[in-house]
């Protein structure tokens, strides 16, 4: 992945960090039952990643 390519995906990288920060807070404040909910926003990142790889493969 080139630098410009990486730069284009900044919002998704930060979005992932935002989710992980919330997961971290859940872990340290004993809110473990809320951690599985993280799969909801993470599924968006998975969908984004799949689209990225499919487009790259079709080039």
């Amino acid at each position, binding site marked *: 992945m080139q630098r410009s390519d990486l730069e284009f995906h900044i919002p998704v990288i930060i979005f992932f*960090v935002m989710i992980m920060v*919330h997961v971290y807070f859940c872990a340290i404040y004993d809110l473990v039952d809320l951690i599985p909910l*993280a799969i909801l*926003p993470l599924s968006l990142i998975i969908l984004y990643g799949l689209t990225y790889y499919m487009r790259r493969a079709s080039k």
Partner: protein
Amino acid sequence: MTDTTITLALVILFSVPMIYHSYRLRGAKRTLILLLNIVGIAVIVELIGVTSGAYTYTGQTLVLVTIFVGIGWIANTYPAMHISLYLLNLYNNKRIKPQEALVVAILSGCFGVIYDLFMDPVAVALGTWVWAKEGPWYGVPLSNFIGWFLIIFSIVFGYTLVDNKNASIPKKALLSIISIVLGSALVYSAMKICAYIGI
């Protein structure tokens, strides 16, 4: 550091890369129009929400809430809009048609809600904000998610329409202000209906 300082620091830390990304992709003027749309609608709607007593931000003054939500909604809205534009393959130099803008806005609103289904229960459990009336989703009322959808929908739809118009920057800023007023009115009306039917 206090909890408020940590929250504000995180909100700024998450929003700055989004602004940078928009600046690199759209340039300064178009980014300012986007920020005007996001901050305008978010601040108006959140201030109405806080002053109506629907929820309170723990330990924060009205000024801090304004700063917090103004910056915070950049981090909430931008990834949802970016993912929608990318999935719909609309990141090209062509102008986005109004019907495409509508699809982008609906998808962005849905993506925002999907994120909030995780984020809001965590924030409520941590006591970042408190709902006056508890709801069915881990204490979060359904009206919150309707609000999230409509806020992001209004921002993205308004911005995309204005951005793709052949007009000068001052005219785009004026159109954005009209869009902010209409978007805020839409969210406010929906919240009133939600309060009336009790969700």
